[in-house]
Structure formats: C-alpha cells, structure tokens
C-alpha cells in the first residue's frame, strides 16, 4: 500500500512538473479596480498632469517624473491587473498633493506576497529567490537590487507558460535585459562603470541581430535548471555560453529553456518535437528532419552502389 502511494505521489509530481501551469490570473474579465485606479492613471499615465492649485486658484500644468509614468494598457495586460494601486502603495496616495514622506515608503518585494505561499507554488518563487541570490545580480549588488529591477510589477506578464509566439517571448525578455544593459542611464543606477554597447560585446556572434531577435539573453547568461521555467541564476560574463554547438546541435539546450513550454505542448498535442522549430524558428544544426535524413542517405547509398556496380562491369568487360 505504501509503495502504491509512493508511486502515485511520484507520478503526480512528475505530471505536475511536466504540465504547463495554468495562469492564476483571470485575463478575460474586466479588471477589478478599473474605476479606482483611473484616479491615479489620470496623472500617472501622462507626461503632463494638471491640478487646481489651491494657493493660487489656478490650474497648473506640470511635467510628470518619467520614472512615475505607467501605461494603463500594459498594467491591465499584466499579472497584477486586478490590483488596486493602493494594494501595494499607501492609501495616503489617494490624497493630492501627495505627502513628501510617502516617497520613502518601503516597497513590497515579490517574496512578501508570493514567498512560501502554496497558492503560488507552481511559479516556484522560492526556487527563483534562491537562484536569484546565487546570481551576479544579487552577489555583486546590495539589497537595492531586487526583483523590480527586471520585473516591473506595473506591467509584468507571464510569458513563458502561455501561447505567446517564441518571437514575442524573446522580445519581451530581452527588452527587460536591454532596459539596463543597453541603456547607459539606467545602467548607472547600479554601476559607475561605462558599458560597451551590446553589439560590440557580442561582435563574435555571427549575425548578432538575428541572434538577439531569435533567442533570449538568458539562454547564454544563466545556469539552466531543468525544474525551472525561467532560469534566474545570471552568471558572470566569463561563464556565459560561447560554444555554438550548445544550441546548434540535435540536443540543443534551447529545448529545455526557450522552447520548453512549446516543446511540452507539442509533445502533448501532436507528439512532434520538431513542431516548434517548423512553425517558429530555424536553428542550424538543431532542425533535423528524420525522413529527409534517411532519404538522403538512401539516395547517396544507391548512387555509390550504382557506381560500384558500373565499375565492376566495366572491369569485367575489359
């Protein structure tokens, strides 16, 4: 009996690990706090905001701090779309002008809400947190480098476990990296050093632009974990993948990273591992059509045999 239970447990675990997680967020219904949030977005969605100055009685127009401008469309497409702004920010923000000391309020981190909560177990926040703390983003920076540096909670979307196109996933994820690594102004928030442009650093890649549009930065710059959807252990640059064949081979590592969701879906629905390649991309050395390979070997073999037979009869008839 105990053995049976163990088998059932292992089987359930295996199925859980291998099946794509369904989103916990209802993306179909209208956002729960559309009206309430409108008050905030009336100012914070625009470069210029206006208000009635009680001292002068005039309508003043001011420029909004660019760091506090948010796109409502992005917010309502994100995973926090049903949130009210004051779920995370102080309710005192409902009063305008905002009190100056509110700027010093302590922000929540991902783990404050998601850590250790079985509701979010499928997203593996605790494992992500562990991996993040191993990464250079954590080890080489102080605590101010947190999840929000890369994942803006005002627009964060769960891309990898959905039916997004691979190209959309790549663009979304790479924009996250590029927002600092290809933007000197942002990069200087955490470092005084000047970075060389990304195209110079990656000049060794044949067709750098194509690589950047086809694969994510994290494909080469993280330590891939089989049990994780998105690797978070960002490695130092000297440990980045530089061997082309890691991706350009039959056992391409992209199958366990970028193509993981599509790969599992393809196996579940059609049983064809190659489907994602056929529909979405082409990776030299990784796209192999078994039937064409066999056909080419048969044709080549028949040609050689034909020639050998011809040679035999030529010699015999001499």
């Amino acid at each position: 009996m105990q053995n049976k239970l163990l088998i059932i447990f292992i089987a359930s675990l295996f199925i859980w690990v291998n099946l794509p997680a369904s989103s916990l967020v209802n993306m179909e219904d209208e956002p729960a706090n559309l009206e309430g949030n409108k008050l905030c977005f009336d100012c914070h969605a625009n470069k210029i905001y206006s208000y009635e100055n009680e001292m002068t009685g005039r309508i003043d127009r001011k420029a909004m701090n660019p760091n506090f401008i948010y796109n409502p469309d992005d917010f309502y497409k994100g995973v926090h779309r049903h949130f009210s702004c004051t779920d995370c920010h102080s309710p005192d923000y409902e009063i305008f002008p905002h009190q100056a000391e509110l700027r010093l309020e302590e922000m929540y981190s991902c783990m404050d809400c998601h850590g250790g909560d079985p509701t979010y177990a499928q997203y593996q926040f605790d494992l992500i947190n562990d991996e993040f703390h191993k990464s250079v983003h954590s080890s080489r920076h102080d605590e101010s480098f947190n999840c929000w540096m890369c994942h803006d909670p005002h627009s964060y979307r769960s891309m990898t476990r959905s039916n997004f196109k691979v190209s959309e996933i790549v663009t979304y994820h790479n924009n996250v990296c590029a927002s600092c690594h290809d933007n000197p102004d942002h990069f200087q928030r955490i470092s005084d050093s000047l970075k060389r442009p990304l195209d110079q650093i990656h000049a060794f890649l044949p067709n750098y632009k194509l690589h950047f549009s086809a694969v994510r930065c994290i494909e080469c710059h993280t330590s891939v974990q089989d049990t994780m959807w998105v690797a978070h252990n960002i490695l130092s640059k000297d440990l980045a993948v530089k061997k082309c064949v890691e991706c350009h081979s039959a056992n391409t590592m992209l199958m366990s990273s970028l193509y993981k969701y599509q790969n599992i879906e393809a196996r579940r629905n059609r049983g064809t591992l190659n489907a994602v390649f056929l529909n979405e991309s082409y990776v030299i050395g990784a796209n192999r059509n078994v039937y064409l390979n066999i056909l080419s070997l048969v044709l080549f073999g028949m040609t050689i045999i034909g020639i050998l037979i011809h040679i035999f009869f030529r010699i015999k008839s001499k």
Partner: protein
Amino acid sequence: MSEKLYLYPVWLRLWHGINAILFLALIATGISMQYSNPDAPLIRFDLAVSWHNIAGVILSLNYLIFVLGNLTTGNGKYYKIVLKGYVQKVLKQMDYYLRGTFKGAHTPFPVTNKRKFNPLQKLTYVGALYMLMPIIILTGLALLFPEFIIDKVFNFSGIYLTALLHGVVGFLLSLFLVVHVYFSTMGSTPTSNFKGMMTGWHEPH
C-alpha cells in the same frame, strides 16, 4: 585515335577548378553545420559558418563568371537543348552507359567541336548549372541576409523553408558532383578527361 580538340579555354578551366574546390569546401562545412555534434565536430561550428559563408560568396561570384563567359564566348552554345527528339537521344545515351559500354560499343554521340556534351550530360549540366545553382545561390544569399526572408509562409518559418530548400539543393548538387567525377573516368582512358580539364585539350574516344 582522332585528333585532340581544344574545348576547355583558360577561363573555363579556371572557373571549373575554383568551382570544384569551393564545392568541396561547401559540402564539408555544410555537412558539419547540419550535423553539428558537440562530441565529434567535423569542423568547429563557428569556423564552419565563416568558411561556408566565404566559400558561398566566392562561388556566387565565380558563377557570374561562368554565366558571363557563356554569354560572351561560344561556350554557351554547348548548353542549348533542342527539345525535338531529345528524350530518345537521352535514352540512347543511357542505353550506352548501361549496356553498350560493356560490349565495347562506340559512344553514340562522340565529342566534336560542335558537340562537347552528350545529351544526358548536357541535360544534367543544364539542370545543375542553370537550375540548381541559381536556387542554391539565391537561398544562400537569403540565409546570409535573413532579414529579407518572409517571416511566415503558410504558417511555416520562412527561414526554415529557405534553409530546407538550400539543404535539399545542396544535397542534389553533391550527388551531381559524385556522379560527375565518376563519369569523368569514362573518357578514352580513366584519366584522360581529368587531363583535358588541366590542359584544355580533349582526347576523343
């Protein structure tokens, strides 16, 4: 033995020699990329990519020399096919290769100044040089500049379809090369045609 014929001018021999070397380089690097294996690399992947690209560009330029040469010299006339009765001529040549040659029969279409190629040879050369070569050059250039390739064709990746066509045509040209080299041994002696491509003089049967 008939008199030797000067059929292969210098420009043609140079084109042919360069083409042969590039063909071998492209086949080796192409196979190495398509079947890249981290454990047993034929040629290191990044080197294979670079060499394949360089060889492909030179091959394309060399092909232009071939086309221009055929347009501006008399060599182009050897590739013209008159369709009337051509199938019978091809079958006759095939019959010679499959039976006649073993019985000591004479080649049905001996090489002359007016006819450099037998009908079967002409057909394969036209197929390889005027059909397959343009396809492999155009698909190769497209893969070199993939930003110009249509993103999706009937829901398939445009790059994948281009690469598939490039690979299939590359394979067919590789087969052509093997058969071409073998049939070159069927001159008046097994090496006479090879000597002819070096000196320019063809030694008839």
